[in-house]
Protein backbone atom coordinates (compact mmCIF):
# COMPACT_ATOMS: atom_id res chain seq x y z
CA UNK A 1 0.00 0.00 0.00
CA UNK A 2 2.93 2.29 0.57
CA UNK A 3 3.42 4.73 -2.29
CA UNK A 4 6.22 3.97 -4.69
CA UNK A 5 9.42 5.72 -3.85
CA UNK A 6 10.31 8.75 -5.85
CA UNK A 7 6.75 9.84 -6.43
CA UNK A 8 6.32 11.56 -3.11
CA UNK A 9 8.85 13.85 -1.46
CA UNK A 10 10.44 12.26 1.55
CA UNK A 11 12.72 13.80 4.12
CA UNK A 12 16.43 13.50 3.49
CA UNK A 13 17.74 10.34 5.03
CA UNK A 14 14.31 9.00 5.83
CA UNK A 15 13.99 5.38 4.87
CA UNK A 16 10.29 5.51 4.19
CA UNK A 17 7.62 8.12 4.15
CA UNK A 18 5.50 7.91 7.28
CA UNK A 19 1.78 8.50 7.12
CA UNK A 20 2.26 12.14 8.10
CA UNK A 21 4.56 12.79 5.22
CA UNK A 22 2.42 11.11 2.65
CA UNK A 23 -0.58 13.04 3.84
CA UNK A 24 1.24 16.32 3.64
CA UNK A 25 2.50 15.45 0.21
CA UNK A 26 -0.99 14.44 -0.86
CA UNK A 27 -2.39 17.71 0.40
CA UNK A 28 0.38 19.57 -1.34
CA UNK A 29 -0.53 17.98 -4.63
CA UNK A 30 -4.28 18.14 -4.20
CA UNK A 31 -4.42 21.66 -2.88
CA UNK A 32 -1.45 23.05 -4.69
CA UNK A 33 -3.16 23.64 -7.99
CA UNK A 34 -6.33 25.07 -6.53
CA UNK A 35 -4.45 27.21 -4.06
CA UNK A 36 -2.13 28.66 -6.64
CA UNK A 37 -5.11 29.81 -8.63
CA UNK A 38 -7.02 31.07 -5.62
CA UNK A 39 -4.29 32.87 -3.74
CA UNK A 40 -2.10 34.14 -6.49
CA UNK A 41 1.45 35.01 -5.61
CA UNK A 42 0.99 35.68 -1.92
CA UNK A 43 1.11 33.00 0.66
CA UNK A 44 1.11 29.77 -1.32
CA UNK A 45 4.70 28.97 -0.54
CA UNK A 46 4.05 29.90 3.05
CA UNK A 47 1.03 27.62 3.28
CA UNK A 48 2.82 24.65 1.81
CA UNK A 49 6.26 25.19 3.22
CA UNK A 50 8.18 22.86 5.48
CA UNK A 51 8.88 23.31 9.20
CA UNK A 52 11.41 26.03 9.92
CA UNK A 53 13.99 23.46 11.00
CA UNK A 54 13.67 21.64 7.69
CA UNK A 55 14.19 24.67 5.50
CA UNK A 56 17.44 24.98 3.63
CA UNK A 57 19.41 28.21 3.90
CA UNK A 58 18.13 29.36 0.53
CA UNK A 59 14.53 28.51 1.38
CA UNK A 60 14.82 30.43 4.66
CA UNK A 61 16.28 33.45 2.90
CA UNK A 62 13.49 33.36 0.36
CA UNK A 63 10.93 33.11 3.13
CA UNK A 64 12.41 36.11 4.95
CA UNK A 65 12.54 38.10 1.73
CA UNK A 66 8.87 37.35 1.05
CA UNK A 67 7.94 38.46 4.55
CA UNK A 68 9.98 41.66 4.29
CA UNK A 69 8.25 42.49 1.05
CA UNK A 70 4.83 41.74 2.48
CA UNK A 71 5.31 43.75 5.68
CA UNK A 72 7.00 46.65 3.90
CA UNK A 73 4.01 46.96 1.60
CA UNK A 74 1.56 46.51 4.46
CA UNK A 75 3.09 49.15 6.72
CA UNK A 76 4.47 51.49 4.09
CA UNK A 77 8.04 51.43 5.36
CA UNK A 78 11.16 49.31 5.06
CA UNK A 79 10.70 46.34 7.38
CA UNK A 80 13.54 43.92 8.08
CA UNK A 81 12.94 40.34 9.21
CA UNK A 82 16.04 38.71 10.65
CA UNK A 83 16.40 35.11 11.70
CA UNK A 84 19.80 35.10 13.37
CA UNK A 85 20.49 32.00 15.37
CA UNK A 86 21.48 31.85 19.03
CA UNK A 87 24.94 33.22 19.81
CA UNK A 88 27.26 30.26 20.43
CA UNK A 89 27.91 29.44 24.09
CA UNK A 90 25.37 31.92 25.41
CA UNK A 91 22.60 31.08 27.85
CA UNK A 92 20.41 34.02 28.71
CA UNK A 93 19.35 34.78 32.25
CA UNK A 94 17.03 37.49 33.46
CA UNK A 95 16.87 38.98 36.94
CA UNK A 96 14.13 41.10 38.45
CA UNK A 97 14.73 42.91 41.71
CA UNK A 98 11.51 42.80 43.72
CA UNK A 99 12.96 45.12 46.34
CA UNK A 100 13.25 47.87 43.71
CA UNK A 101 10.24 47.49 41.41
CA UNK A 102 7.72 50.26 42.05
CA UNK A 103 4.98 49.02 39.71
CA UNK A 104 5.11 51.96 37.29
CA UNK A 105 4.39 49.72 34.26
CA UNK A 106 6.98 51.51 32.09
CA UNK A 107 8.27 48.06 31.10
CA UNK A 108 4.83 46.96 29.89
CA UNK A 109 4.56 49.75 27.36
CA UNK A 110 8.21 49.69 26.29
CA UNK A 111 7.62 46.03 25.48
CA UNK A 112 4.45 46.81 23.54
CA UNK A 113 6.24 49.44 21.45
CA UNK A 114 9.27 47.26 20.79
CA UNK A 115 7.43 44.04 20.06
CA UNK A 116 4.55 45.20 17.87
CA UNK A 117 1.84 43.74 20.07
CA UNK A 118 -1.79 44.56 19.39
CA UNK A 119 -2.69 47.86 21.04
CA UNK A 120 -6.40 48.06 21.84
CA UNK A 121 -8.76 45.46 20.41
CA UNK A 122 -7.51 42.98 21.30
CA UNK A 123 -5.04 44.42 23.77
CA UNK A 124 -1.99 42.20 24.13
CA UNK A 125 0.72 42.85 26.70
CA UNK A 126 3.54 40.39 27.35
CA UNK A 127 4.34 41.79 30.79
CA UNK A 128 1.78 41.82 33.57
CA UNK A 129 2.62 43.68 36.77
CA UNK A 130 1.02 42.18 39.85
CA UNK A 131 0.38 44.31 42.89
CA UNK A 132 0.67 42.31 46.08
CA UNK A 133 0.21 42.99 49.78
CA UNK A 134 3.36 43.19 51.83
CA UNK A 135 1.62 41.36 54.65
CA UNK A 136 0.88 38.35 52.42
CA UNK A 137 4.18 38.18 50.52
CA UNK A 138 4.27 36.53 47.11
CA UNK A 139 0.75 35.15 47.12
CA UNK A 140 -1.30 34.99 43.95
CA UNK A 141 -4.51 34.91 45.97
CA UNK A 142 -3.83 38.55 46.78
CA UNK A 143 -2.40 39.69 43.45
CA UNK A 144 -4.02 42.43 41.43
CA UNK A 145 -2.87 43.28 37.90
CA UNK A 146 -5.52 45.99 37.45
CA UNK A 147 -4.39 48.39 40.18
CA UNK A 148 -4.89 52.07 39.49
CA UNK A 149 -3.19 54.77 41.52
CA UNK A 150 -2.13 58.40 41.38
CA UNK A 151 1.32 57.41 42.52
CA UNK A 152 3.19 54.16 42.94
CA UNK A 153 4.44 52.40 44.96
CA UNK A 154 1.32 52.41 47.09
CA UNK A 155 2.00 52.01 50.81
CA UNK A 156 1.74 48.43 52.02
CA UNK A 157 2.18 46.97 48.55
CA UNK A 158 4.93 45.54 46.44
CA UNK A 159 4.99 44.74 42.75
CA UNK A 160 5.89 41.63 40.80
CA UNK A 161 6.06 41.86 37.01
CA UNK A 162 5.45 38.51 35.33
CA UNK A 163 6.36 37.58 31.78
CA UNK A 164 7.56 34.44 30.00
CA UNK A 165 9.96 32.68 32.35
CA UNK A 166 11.78 30.91 29.49
CA UNK A 167 11.60 27.60 31.35
CA UNK A 168 14.24 24.94 30.91
CA UNK A 169 11.42 22.45 31.20
CA UNK A 170 8.67 24.32 29.37
CA UNK A 171 5.18 22.80 29.66
CA UNK A 172 4.04 24.90 26.69
CA UNK A 173 6.54 23.26 24.38
CA UNK A 174 5.59 19.81 25.61
CA UNK A 175 1.92 20.21 24.75
CA UNK A 176 2.22 21.82 21.33
CA UNK A 177 0.76 19.28 18.89
CA UNK A 178 2.55 20.68 15.82
CA UNK A 179 5.97 21.72 17.15
CA UNK A 180 5.24 25.37 16.47
CA UNK A 181 7.04 26.32 19.68
CA UNK A 182 10.39 25.17 20.99
CA UNK A 183 13.35 26.11 23.15
CA UNK A 184 16.38 27.60 21.42
CA UNK A 185 20.01 26.90 22.44
CA UNK A 186 20.29 30.27 24.23
CA UNK A 187 17.22 29.38 26.24
CA UNK A 188 14.60 31.52 24.54
CA UNK A 189 11.30 29.73 24.01
CA UNK A 190 10.12 30.80 20.57
CA UNK A 191 7.00 30.44 18.43
CA UNK A 192 6.77 30.13 14.67
CA UNK A 193 3.64 32.17 14.07
CA UNK A 194 3.24 30.64 10.62
CA UNK A 195 3.28 27.12 12.03
CA UNK A 196 0.99 27.79 15.01
CA UNK A 197 -2.52 26.39 14.50
CA UNK A 198 -4.04 28.42 17.33
CA UNK A 199 -5.19 25.49 19.47
CA UNK A 200 -4.06 27.35 22.62
CA UNK A 201 -2.92 24.18 24.41
CA UNK A 202 0.28 26.06 25.30
CA UNK A 203 -1.67 28.97 26.73
CA UNK A 204 -3.47 26.57 29.01
CA UNK A 205 -0.30 24.70 29.92
CA UNK A 206 1.72 27.77 30.93
CA UNK A 207 1.56 28.24 34.70
CA UNK A 208 2.58 31.89 34.40
CA UNK A 209 -0.11 33.19 32.06
CA UNK A 210 2.66 34.33 29.77
CA UNK A 211 1.16 33.26 26.46
CA UNK A 212 -1.32 35.53 24.72
CA UNK A 213 -3.70 34.65 21.91
CA UNK A 214 -4.61 36.95 19.03
CA UNK A 215 -8.38 36.67 19.20
CA UNK A 216 -8.77 39.21 16.41
CA UNK A 217 -6.66 40.84 13.73
CA UNK A 218 -3.89 42.63 15.70
CA UNK A 219 -4.36 46.35 16.06
CA UNK A 220 -1.04 47.90 15.02
CA UNK A 221 -0.77 51.18 13.16
CA UNK A 222 1.86 51.84 10.51
CA UNK A 223 3.40 54.72 12.48
CA UNK A 224 3.79 52.68 15.65
CA UNK A 225 5.08 49.58 13.92
CA UNK A 226 8.70 48.79 14.85
CA UNK A 227 10.32 47.81 11.53
CA UNK A 228 13.35 46.02 12.99
CA UNK A 229 12.00 42.53 13.49
CA UNK A 230 12.99 38.91 14.01
CA UNK A 231 11.16 35.96 12.47
CA UNK A 232 10.70 34.32 15.87
CA UNK A 233 10.11 37.58 17.72
CA UNK A 234 8.42 40.86 17.01
CA UNK A 235 7.39 40.52 13.38
CA UNK A 236 3.70 41.25 12.87
CA UNK A 237 1.49 38.37 13.89
CA UNK A 238 -1.61 37.17 12.10
CA UNK A 239 -4.94 36.62 13.82
CA UNK A 240 -5.36 33.28 15.57
CA UNK A 241 -1.83 32.60 16.81
CA UNK A 242 -0.16 32.64 20.20
CA UNK A 243 2.64 35.02 21.17
CA UNK A 244 4.76 35.86 24.23
CA UNK A 245 7.95 37.45 25.54
CA UNK A 246 11.13 36.39 23.71
CA UNK A 247 13.66 38.39 25.78
CA UNK A 248 13.43 40.78 22.78
CA UNK A 249 15.13 38.19 20.57
CA UNK A 250 15.66 40.83 17.86
CA UNK A 251 17.72 42.85 20.36
CA UNK A 252 19.32 40.26 22.65
CA UNK A 253 20.73 38.19 19.78
CA UNK A 254 22.68 41.20 18.53
CA UNK A 255 23.98 41.97 22.00
CA UNK A 256 21.47 44.57 23.10
CA UNK A 257 19.54 44.63 26.36
CA UNK A 258 15.82 43.87 26.10
CA UNK A 259 13.58 46.95 25.94
CA UNK A 260 12.13 46.39 29.43
CA UNK A 261 15.64 46.41 30.94
CA UNK A 262 16.50 49.74 29.38
CA UNK A 263 13.28 51.53 30.26
CA UNK A 264 13.11 50.54 33.95
CA UNK A 265 13.48 53.80 35.91
CA UNK A 266 14.71 52.07 39.06
CA UNK A 267 17.14 49.61 37.48
CA UNK A 268 15.23 46.61 38.76
CA UNK A 269 15.78 44.54 35.62
CA UNK A 270 19.03 42.67 34.88
CA UNK A 271 19.95 40.67 31.82
CA UNK A 272 22.97 38.76 30.63
CA UNK A 273 24.77 35.53 29.89
CA UNK A 274 24.53 32.90 32.62
CA UNK A 275 27.72 31.25 31.38
CA UNK A 276 29.78 34.43 31.78
CA UNK A 277 30.97 34.65 35.39
CA UNK A 278 31.44 38.42 35.03
CA UNK A 279 27.92 39.09 33.82
CA UNK A 280 25.46 41.11 35.84
CA UNK A 281 23.04 38.23 36.12
CA UNK A 282 25.75 35.93 37.51
CA UNK A 283 26.70 38.54 40.12
CA UNK A 284 23.07 38.71 41.12
CA UNK A 285 22.83 34.95 41.45
CA UNK A 286 26.02 34.71 43.46
CA UNK A 287 25.43 37.57 45.87
CA UNK A 288 21.68 38.08 46.26
CA UNK A 289 18.67 36.21 47.55
CA UNK A 290 17.24 34.66 44.41
CA UNK A 291 14.13 32.62 43.76
CA UNK A 292 12.20 31.32 40.78
CA UNK A 293 8.46 31.68 40.47
CA UNK A 294 6.42 28.54 41.21
CA UNK A 295 9.54 26.53 41.86
CA UNK A 296 7.42 23.55 42.93
CA UNK A 297 6.26 23.03 39.35
CA UNK A 298 9.84 22.17 38.26
CA UNK A 299 9.59 24.35 35.19
CA UNK A 300 13.11 25.60 35.96
CA UNK A 301 12.83 29.15 34.66
CA UNK A 302 15.69 31.18 33.23
CA UNK A 303 13.96 34.17 34.78
CA UNK A 304 15.00 34.91 38.37
CA UNK A 305 13.45 37.13 40.97
CA UNK A 306 15.76 38.56 43.61
CA UNK A 307 16.03 40.94 46.50
CA UNK A 308 19.04 43.24 46.34
CA UNK A 309 18.35 44.65 49.79
Amino acid at each position, binding site marked *: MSPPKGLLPVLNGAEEAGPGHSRRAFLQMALGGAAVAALGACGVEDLLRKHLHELSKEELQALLARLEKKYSAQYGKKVSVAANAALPGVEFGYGLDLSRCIG*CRRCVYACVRENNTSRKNPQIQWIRVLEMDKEHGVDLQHANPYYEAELVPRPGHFYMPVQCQQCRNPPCVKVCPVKATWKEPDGIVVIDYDWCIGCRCCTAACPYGARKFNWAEPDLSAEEMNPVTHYLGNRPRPRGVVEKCTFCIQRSRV*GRYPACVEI*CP*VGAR*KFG*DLRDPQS*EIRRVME*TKRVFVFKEDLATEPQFYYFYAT
Partner: protein
Amino acid sequence: MRSRGPRSLLALLALLAAPAAAATGPAAKGAPAPAADAPAKAEKAGGAPAEDLIQAEKPPFSEGIFPCSQCHQGPGDSKRRELAFHDDVQSTFDHDSEHRWCLDCHMNASRDVLHLANGDAVPFTESYRLCGQCHGDKYRDWRVGVHGKRVGMWNGQKTYYLCVNCHNPHSPRFKPLKPEPRPTRPEEMKR
Protein backbone atom coordinates in the same frame (compact mmCIF):
# COMPACT_ATOMS: atom_id res chain seq x y z
CA MET B 1 43.26 65.62 -12.16
CA ARG B 2 41.98 67.99 -9.61
CA SER B 3 38.82 66.04 -8.94
CA ARG B 4 40.77 62.88 -8.17
CA GLY B 5 42.49 64.38 -5.16
CA PRO B 6 39.47 64.52 -2.86
CA ARG B 7 38.16 61.25 -4.16
CA SER B 8 41.30 59.31 -3.35
CA LEU B 9 41.33 61.01 0.00
CA LEU B 10 37.80 59.77 0.55
CA ALA B 11 38.81 56.27 -0.41
CA LEU B 12 41.68 56.43 2.04
CA LEU B 13 39.34 57.65 4.73
CA ALA B 14 36.94 54.84 3.97
CA LEU B 15 39.77 52.33 4.28
CA LEU B 16 40.78 53.80 7.60
CA ALA B 17 37.22 53.91 8.83
CA ALA B 18 36.40 50.32 7.94
CA PRO B 19 38.41 48.61 10.70
CA ALA B 20 37.24 51.22 13.17
CA ALA B 21 33.65 50.47 12.34
CA ALA B 22 34.33 46.75 12.66
CA ALA B 23 35.89 47.32 16.05
CA THR B 24 32.86 49.11 17.44
CA GLY B 25 31.03 46.12 16.05
CA PRO B 26 27.47 45.26 16.92
CA ALA B 27 27.11 48.27 19.19
CA ALA B 28 27.07 50.69 16.34
CA LYS B 29 24.95 48.77 13.91
CA GLY B 30 21.51 47.26 14.14
CA ALA B 31 22.15 44.73 11.42
CA PRO B 32 23.95 41.72 12.79
CA ALA B 33 26.70 39.80 11.07
CA PRO B 34 26.29 36.38 12.66
CA ALA B 35 29.93 35.33 12.48
CA ALA B 36 31.44 38.61 13.67
CA ASP B 37 28.75 38.89 16.28
CA ALA B 38 30.22 36.60 18.91
CA PRO B 39 30.20 38.21 22.35
CA ALA B 40 33.17 40.39 23.09
CA LYS B 41 34.44 38.09 25.79
CA ALA B 42 38.05 39.01 25.19
CA GLU B 43 37.44 42.65 25.94
CA LYS B 44 35.51 41.95 29.03
CA ALA B 45 37.72 39.22 30.44
CA GLY B 46 41.06 39.95 31.99
CA GLY B 47 39.38 40.67 35.28
CA ALA B 48 39.06 44.36 34.47
CA PRO B 49 36.79 45.98 36.99
CA ALA B 50 33.57 47.36 35.62
CA GLU B 51 34.85 50.82 36.37
CA ASP B 52 37.15 50.62 33.34
CA LEU B 53 34.17 50.33 31.06
CA ILE B 54 32.33 53.29 32.44
CA GLN B 55 30.97 55.80 30.01
CA ALA B 56 28.85 57.60 32.50
CA GLU B 57 26.24 60.16 31.72
CA LYS B 58 27.18 63.71 32.58
CA PRO B 59 26.43 64.94 36.10
CA PRO B 60 23.02 66.63 36.11
CA PHE B 61 23.85 70.25 36.95
CA SER B 62 21.16 72.89 37.08
CA GLU B 63 21.32 75.31 34.16
CA GLY B 64 24.19 77.79 34.44
CA ILE B 65 25.33 76.66 37.87
CA PHE B 66 28.63 75.05 36.89
CA PRO B 67 31.50 75.88 37.23
CA CYS B 68 30.85 77.00 40.77
CA SER B 69 34.01 79.14 40.65
CA GLN B 70 31.96 81.64 38.66
CA CYS B 71 30.82 82.88 42.06
CA HIS B 72 32.94 81.03 44.62
CA GLN B 73 36.57 82.01 44.47
CA GLY B 74 38.67 80.61 47.24
CA PRO B 75 37.44 79.22 50.54
CA GLY B 76 34.40 80.69 52.28
CA ASP B 77 33.05 80.60 55.81
CA SER B 78 33.15 76.93 56.80
CA LYS B 79 30.57 77.24 59.57
CA ARG B 80 27.25 75.52 59.03
CA ARG B 81 24.47 78.09 58.46
CA GLU B 82 21.47 79.09 56.36
CA LEU B 83 22.55 80.48 53.02
CA ALA B 84 21.04 83.40 51.19
CA PHE B 85 21.53 81.59 47.87
CA HIS B 86 20.82 77.99 46.70
CA ASP B 87 17.26 78.05 48.01
CA ASP B 88 16.24 75.23 45.69
CA VAL B 89 18.71 72.92 47.37
CA GLN B 90 18.21 74.12 50.92
CA SER B 91 14.45 73.83 50.79
CA THR B 92 14.53 70.23 49.56
CA PHE B 93 17.68 69.04 51.28
CA ASP B 94 16.92 65.63 52.76
CA HIS B 95 20.11 63.62 52.98
CA ASP B 96 20.79 63.15 56.66
CA SER B 97 20.04 66.87 56.85
CA GLU B 98 20.20 66.92 60.62
CA HIS B 99 23.89 66.20 60.60
CA ARG B 100 25.20 67.41 57.30
CA TRP B 101 25.46 70.46 55.11
CA CYS B 102 27.08 71.68 51.87
CA LEU B 103 30.73 71.54 52.81
CA ASP B 104 30.55 67.96 54.02
CA CYS B 105 30.66 67.00 50.35
CA HIS B 106 31.53 70.17 48.43
CA MET B 107 35.12 71.30 48.76
CA ASN B 108 35.51 74.62 50.48
CA ALA B 109 38.86 75.46 48.92
CA SER B 110 37.65 74.80 45.37
CA ARG B 111 33.91 74.54 44.77
CA ASP B 112 34.33 72.98 41.34
CA VAL B 113 35.11 69.67 42.99
CA LEU B 114 33.83 67.51 45.81
CA HIS B 115 35.89 66.02 48.60
CA LEU B 116 36.13 62.71 50.36
CA ALA B 117 36.10 62.32 54.13
CA ASN B 118 39.90 62.34 54.12
CA GLY B 119 39.95 65.65 52.24
CA ASP B 120 40.94 64.33 48.82
CA ALA B 121 39.35 66.18 45.93
CA VAL B 122 36.89 64.28 43.71
CA PRO B 123 35.60 65.67 40.40
CA PHE B 124 31.84 65.71 39.86
CA THR B 125 32.24 63.06 37.18
CA GLU B 126 33.49 60.61 39.84
CA SER B 127 31.00 61.48 42.53
CA TYR B 128 30.32 57.76 43.05
CA ARG B 129 33.55 57.58 45.04
CA LEU B 130 32.10 60.10 47.45
CA CYS B 131 28.73 58.32 47.67
CA GLY B 132 30.53 55.02 48.14
CA GLN B 133 32.12 56.16 51.37
CA CYS B 134 28.83 55.72 53.21
CA HIS B 135 26.91 53.50 50.81
CA GLY B 136 29.61 50.89 50.34
CA ASP B 137 27.20 48.02 49.73
CA LYS B 138 25.44 49.92 46.96
CA TYR B 139 28.77 51.02 45.53
CA ARG B 140 30.00 47.44 45.31
CA ASP B 141 26.77 46.35 43.64
CA TRP B 142 26.83 49.30 41.27
CA ARG B 143 30.37 48.59 40.11
CA VAL B 144 29.37 45.14 38.91
CA GLY B 145 26.05 46.24 37.47
CA VAL B 146 23.72 44.83 40.11
CA HIS B 147 22.65 48.18 41.52
CA GLY B 148 21.45 50.83 39.10
CA LYS B 149 20.81 50.74 35.44
CA ARG B 150 22.86 50.21 32.31
CA VAL B 151 21.80 50.60 28.72
CA GLY B 152 23.45 49.42 25.53
CA MET B 153 24.98 46.01 24.96
CA TRP B 154 24.78 43.19 27.48
CA ASN B 155 27.93 41.75 25.88
CA GLY B 156 29.79 44.95 25.10
CA GLN B 157 29.78 48.69 25.41
CA LYS B 158 27.17 50.11 27.69
CA THR B 159 26.27 53.40 29.24
CA TYR B 160 26.46 53.49 32.99
CA TYR B 161 24.76 56.05 35.16
CA LEU B 162 26.28 57.99 38.02
CA CYS B 163 24.46 57.73 41.34
CA VAL B 164 23.30 61.30 40.81
CA ASN B 165 21.81 60.61 37.39
CA CYS B 166 19.04 58.69 39.15
CA HIS B 167 19.19 59.97 42.75
CA ASN B 168 19.05 63.66 43.54
CA PRO B 169 22.15 63.93 45.76
CA HIS B 170 20.41 66.48 47.97
CA SER B 171 17.29 64.34 48.34
CA PRO B 172 18.21 60.85 47.23
CA ARG B 173 15.08 58.87 48.03
CA PHE B 174 13.15 57.94 44.89
CA LYS B 175 10.00 59.94 44.41
CA PRO B 176 6.78 58.05 43.66
CA LEU B 177 5.73 57.95 40.00
CA LYS B 178 2.46 58.04 38.14
CA PRO B 179 1.93 54.53 36.79
CA GLU B 180 1.05 53.80 33.18
CA PRO B 181 -2.57 52.73 32.52
CA ARG B 182 -3.76 49.38 33.79
CA PRO B 183 -4.41 46.59 31.28
CA THR B 184 -7.89 46.17 29.85
CA ARG B 185 -10.00 43.61 31.66
CA PRO B 186 -11.18 40.77 29.42
CA GLU B 187 -14.82 41.85 29.80
CA GLU B 188 -13.95 45.35 28.61
CA MET B 189 -12.62 44.17 25.25
CA LYS B 190 -14.86 44.47 22.23
CA ARG B 191 -16.14 41.26 20.78
